């Protein structure tokens, strides 16, 4: 098939099928609703599939990302949304300002002790099913700041992560690849298991009474949500 005029080739090869299909469907359907997909279905404009599979395909093809900036990586994330890279081409370019409207959160940057409880809260506010792309070295291990007294050693200490995109920061192309990989996984019905993470939000009263808890007992209410960091055991 010559690539000089592919249009003709398609018209020639599918015209009889299209005619048959149109004849079967009868009048009523407007030309505007014709699409390459319809052409591809040919004379049988129906498919048989499992509902779950269809839903997964739909989910993967239309990702709403949370507009969530933390650090350096968020600048590259903005470029990924921008004109040149335009992640919208892959059906994942609708940044939502509210976590309640988002399917997928990109974690773009270093997570520090003060921010981890808030990030956990934002993640908890997203409706199921939800997916996480960890962007950059900081969300893998703490990256260049791993030795810091205040730095959580990777997003996976706090929330489950489906895809890790390494780099400091990853190029927009890398992030697009990561998102595409995530879409592929979602379409296949895969996601990371939600398990208990080393750092969880819990009520202060539920913590084991150790020296630190005793010391803070006057300052913090029993019912206050807290996150306890165990730096010595961090990887």
């Amino acid at each position: 098939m010559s690539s000089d005029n592919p249009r003709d080739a398609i018209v020639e090869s599918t015209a009889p099928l299209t005619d048959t299909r149109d004849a079967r469907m009868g009048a009523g359907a407007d030309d505007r609703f014709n699409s390459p997909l319809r052409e591809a279905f040919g004379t049988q404009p129906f498919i048989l599939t499992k509902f779950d599979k269809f839903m997964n395909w739909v989910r993967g093809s239309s990702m709403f990302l949370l507009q969530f900036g933390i650090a350096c990586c968020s600048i590259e994330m903005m470029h990924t949304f921008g004109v040149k890279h335009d992640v919208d081409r892959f059906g994942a370019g609708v940044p939502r300002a509210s976590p309640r409207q988002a399917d997928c959160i990109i974690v773009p940057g270093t997570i520090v002790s003060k921010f981890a409880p808030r990030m956990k809260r934002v993640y908890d506010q997203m409706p199921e099913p939800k997916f996480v792309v960890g962007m950059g070295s900081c969300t893998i291990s703490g990256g260049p700041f791993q030795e810091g007294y205040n730095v959580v050693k990777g997003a996976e200490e706090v929330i489950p992560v489906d895809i890790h995109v390494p780099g400091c920061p990853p190029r927009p192309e890398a992030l697009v690849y990561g998102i595409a990989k995530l879409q592929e996984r979602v379409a296949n019905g895969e996601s990371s298991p939600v398990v208990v993470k080393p750092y969880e939000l819990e009520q202060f009263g539920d913590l084991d009474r150790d020296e630190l808890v005793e010391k803070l007992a006057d300052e913090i209410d029993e019912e206050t949500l807290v996150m306890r960091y165990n730096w010595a055991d961090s990887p």
Partner: protein
Amino acid sequence: MSADEELVETTVGSDLDADGIAALLGEAVLDREEHLNAPGFVIRPDAVQEVLTKLRDEAGFDHLSCVTAQQYTDRYESIYHLTSYDDRQREVSVVVPTDPERPVSQSAEPVFRTADWHEREAYDLVGIEYEGHPDLRRILLPQTWQGHPLSLEYHQDKPQIVTLDAHKNPLEADHRGNSETMFLNIGPHHPATHGVLHLKAVLDGEQVADVEPDIGYLHRCEEQMCQAGTYRHQIMPYPDRWDYISAGLLNEWAYARAAEDLADLEVPEYAQVIRTMSAELCRIASHLLAMGTFALDVNGDFTAAFMYAITDRERVQDILEDLTGQRMMFNYFRLGGVAWDLPEPREEFFGKIRDFLDHLPGAAEEYHNLITRNEVFQLRCVDTGYLSPEVAKSYGCTGAVARASGIDYDLRRDDPYGYYDELDWEVITEDGCDNYARLLVRMREVEQSARIIEQCVDLLEDWPEDDREIQSNVPRTLKPDEDAEIYRAVEGAKGELGIYIRSDGTDKPARFKIRSPCFSNLQALPAIAEGEYIPDLIAALGSLDIVLGEVDR
């Protein structure tokens, strides 16, 4: 205080030398020190306000640039780095030693408003307490943190507990007595806060009665990281990550300048030209993003402006990638020069830069049509977010924020470094003092940066081939003299970016303190936003152009 009085005041005593200052301060001075950038006066911890008032009113030191706190084995020390907005090269360091058992010294907050946050940071990280400080709480770390991480006896492996209750529920019964106000949280996850900033706002109707920035959500221990690295190579990657809006080279220059002056290193002229050119490219990239996000903040319909700005930034980043090999985290400067020469073929590289420079005037015209000449935009920004020059000085504002308030202060000209003093360009000031002026300063600075780049390209094109020295001879292991102290600043994308380094004779700094321009600029937000409508608070925040990586460090 009128501007004229200010002028008289600052000229009084501006001819004082170190001995003159010592005489002025009298018996408050315990000892004299010599820092590499300025004379240092060791003073009594209970005389801080008296000394700083005298220096400000009688010797013309009206800019408290930075407060550095550190712990020695036998004492704590706070250093107030003072300079003058009119004459940046006049500097003095006021050193306040305190007792190791009970580290308390007088607060400088009543004299310089900017000392408020700086002293809170010193308390938070080092553990010095300031008597008379209005609100001495932790600023970067959570309130429940145990220990002071940059003090000598801090044990990093101890567990910590962080609470999530700091954000009060606005629907609860009123938070401020019986008045008609309402409490509103903005952030830390909010599209308009430019990162992870939390604003605690108190509203009276639709007006802002009070706003308190709550920072520290991106405190990545940058100072600790730098203190753990060796001078020669291990520190340079970190500056890229302070102000990460592609301003990496400007930040690298801050460290390079401080360390080169500390270790007395020469930089070849050729490398200085490359540095100047590449740093200005970074400034353009940074200002473009500031403009794009500001347009987005002020009115969502300006998405087009944001997309255009991103597109132009891509062009800058392409050029910088050709030069440095990276889009954002360049790590291109070396102590004593730059990492490598311009990419070959040079003509192609220069052609790419010239193409971009040719494209800029048209793009600038388009931005002005889209943004600054837009009536809706003008209604939103002209005369909102007023910051008077006196208040700006008292908060230590620098960069575009200060210049938009009519303060003619730019370190590239006032404390020359690199190749700036050989080139023909202007310092942009506006006297609108409002959100509009701050944006206008940035947009006009882009044009000046383009002028600088063009001259640098001309110079580099004609540079003789046998004289392209990119690095001077630098010892493999740098060990500056023991107890050498230096505070040096450059004009970063957001303002005066200063580095304080104290050497202890090893190959790693004993204290590495970053003076972030955004930290001081953000501190002025309550002064700007009080009494404004809530959308104008968002506009004011956008016009300050903060980047949280640099605020929190």
